């Protein structure tokens, strides 16, 4: 019974979508870190969901929390707690394969592997990485227009072949 409730809660939480990139679920984005069902001192069932911000100032955290609470309550979980986990920090490597496919299908470029650092962070005055291929036409001839996009987790590129601008989820 307890295991089934936990699986149900995880299933409901796993369907909640990211408010900024609604083609992704919070689970696919790697923001949903865990869903547990526990009981308080009186034996009442409590769902505890853990989320982590993509960036420290991510203004969507509150909406994510509210959406989780809302959906879980709708599914019959009366008491829901959402905890913020800061450590380990979110990495774009946590975006699932399904999430990457969903980004591509929506015309967004998924991130490559996050940089592995050892020692001090090096200053980079040139382009950080090879430009990603265009998610629309597949051309490799793309250019960075800004490392900061409409949300903290995205950079802006332009494709020189099809001339369309596109957003790229940054590697962090």
């Amino acid at each position: 019974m307890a295991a089934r409730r936990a699986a149900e809660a995880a299933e409901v939480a796993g369907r909640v979508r990211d408010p900024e990139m609604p083609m992704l679920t919070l689970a696919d984005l790697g923001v949903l870190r865990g869903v547990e069902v526990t009981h308080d001192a009186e034996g009442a069932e409590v769902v505890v969901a853990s989320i982590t911000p993509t960036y420290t100032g991510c203004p969507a955290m509150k909406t994510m929390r509210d959406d989780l609470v809302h959906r879980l309550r709708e599914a019959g979980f009366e008491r829901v707690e959402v905890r913020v986990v800061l450590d380990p920090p979110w990495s774009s490597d946590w975006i699932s394969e399904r999430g990457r496919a969903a980004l591509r299908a929506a015309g967004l470029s998924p991130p490559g592997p996050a940089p592995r650092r050892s020692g001090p962070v090096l200053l980079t005055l040139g382009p950080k990485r090879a430009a990603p291929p265009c998610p629309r036409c597949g051309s490799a001839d793309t250019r960075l227009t800004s490392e900061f996009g409409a949300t903290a987790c995205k950079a802006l590129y332009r494709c020189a072949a099809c001339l369309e601008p596109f957003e790229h989820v940054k590697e962090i």
Partner: protein
Amino acid sequence: MNEEHGSIFDGLLESGDSGQWAFGTDFEDPLAGIDTTTPDGVDPAGLAAYCLMLGDDALIMSQRLSEWCSRAPDLEEDIALANMALDLLGQARLLLARAAAADPSVVPVLPDGSPVPPEDRLAFFRDDREFRNVRLAEVPNGDFAHVVVRLLLFSAARLAVFERLRASRDQVLAAVAGKGVKELAYHRDWAGRWFLTLARGTEESHRRLLAALDALWPLRAELVASHPLERSMAGAGVGVDPASVAGEVDAVVDQVLAVSGVERPERAPLAGVGGRTGRDGMHTEALSRLLAEMQVVARAHPMGRW
């Protein structure tokens, strides 16, 4: 027309207690579920003051960057500056909340029943003398070269401090630093690239860059100066003495200067007042003006919900 617009909100107005959830009218504890116990052997008041130093640097810098909104040379840079402001605001929020959790007596007292959370009280209800940010963060904005130079100096120092702070015995500081390093690396690279671009650009951009560098250089020393509190928190294993990373910060700044063909300015550090500087609450008048604008609405409504 109104009917149509009304319908957008209908979906949000669901019945029951959670009907207002989507509007974001409620506050939340940014450290919910995080262990905020002060590590063994650490003075809670000292830890709180140290968190205010790091948090105020981010808050005031964020406010100055926000003032750039809609004023940058092009849309991409406008968005970049807003993004960096948001990153720093996020860091400030956690750090001020951490200060409040370590020592609740630092939080300004508001009328009973006020819904303003501790980190907002610290941001909006303290006076200038209680802010512990470096003066580099508070001086008024200038032209685009000015914000490039300010961000380069600021993020080079903050990144070096945060790299060390990841090993803090305080879990919150270590976590904030762990995330902050990734963000600050972007800020420093953005500033470094624009520094190079302006230095190697036109005669006018070069001239403006040198003017900004000259104006801000005297404020640089404070970033890597060592305050007694920073030394004691470093000794306790929770903080970082900025002086211990001064060499590293110098090397990064020198690297940018060298690539850009710009000489290191010869300007003496801006003196404090009787040896007291931003970390001691001794600021330039610019901070009072900044705070007046930043705090006026919150102070007019100490019982306000946002």
